[in-house]
């Protein structure tokens, strides 16, 4: 029993990561509002940040900034990858929102079903 609980606690980060990931996936598939879909995509993206940062952590270690007092540091490499991914993520997110704005101007709506109804060829 204790062992199962310990195992659960040790993998709790991954479980939450997976939960965020499938929530993002669910929003992208199930919701029709294009902005909501984009927010779902960014949820999916943040779950990937967690997926990278979780293995980088070492318990009782410190942030990867060198100081004489500390000997163990968390792994800096995933931090670098995720740092750039966040900024690139917001830039591409804004690009998606710009596309949504143009869709709104062309079709008068951002609900997927209504767009399909107005434009039968799109389906």
């Amino acid at each position, binding site marked *: 029993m204790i062992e199962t609980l310990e195992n659960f606690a040790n993998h709790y980060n991954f479980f939450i990561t997976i939960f965020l990931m499938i929530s993002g996936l669910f929003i992208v598939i199930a919701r029709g509002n294009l902005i909501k879909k984009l927010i779902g995509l960014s949820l999916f993206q943040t779950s990937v940040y967690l997926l990278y940062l979780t293995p980088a952590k070492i318990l009782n270690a410190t942030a990867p900034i060198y100081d004489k007092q500390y000997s163990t540091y968390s792994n800096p490499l995933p931090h670098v990858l995720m*740092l750039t991914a966040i*900024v690139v993520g917001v830039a591409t997110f804004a690009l998606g929102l*710009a596309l949504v704005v143009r869709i709104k101007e062309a079709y008068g709506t951002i609900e997927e079903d209504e767009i399909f109804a107005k434009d039968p060829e799109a389906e």
Partner: protein
Amino acid sequence: MRLDLILRVGAKLILPFILLFALYVQFHGDYGPGGGFQAGVISAGMVILFAIIFGVRAAKHVAPPRVVEMMVPGGVLIFAGTGVVSMLLGYNFLDYTGFAHEFLHAHEWGILIVEIGVLVTVCGTMIAMFYAFVERGRT
């Protein structure tokens, strides 16, 4: 919004410190958390806060759209240009060893210049995006 005195005075108090913090994050990035990406976003945030409170027209006097649009490719050019300079000095692309006599010193110079390139591009892109969205709403 025009008559919101507390908001305007409070913002005036905060704005210079936001910019100062952005510069601190930029130039202290070698020793503490921070760097070009964060500083770029924070300084863009300052311009956006200014635009929200004092209007986009006033913000365009502070950060003219022409300059902002020049910043978008400018930072990438600074970054890539650093690589070309290091090649001209006889090292690999983006190997900063030739910038000074000492290894640490040279690499700190290289990192500083490259981070400025990142700051310029990120800051310019964020402000340009904000202007683009706001302008779309006006017409």
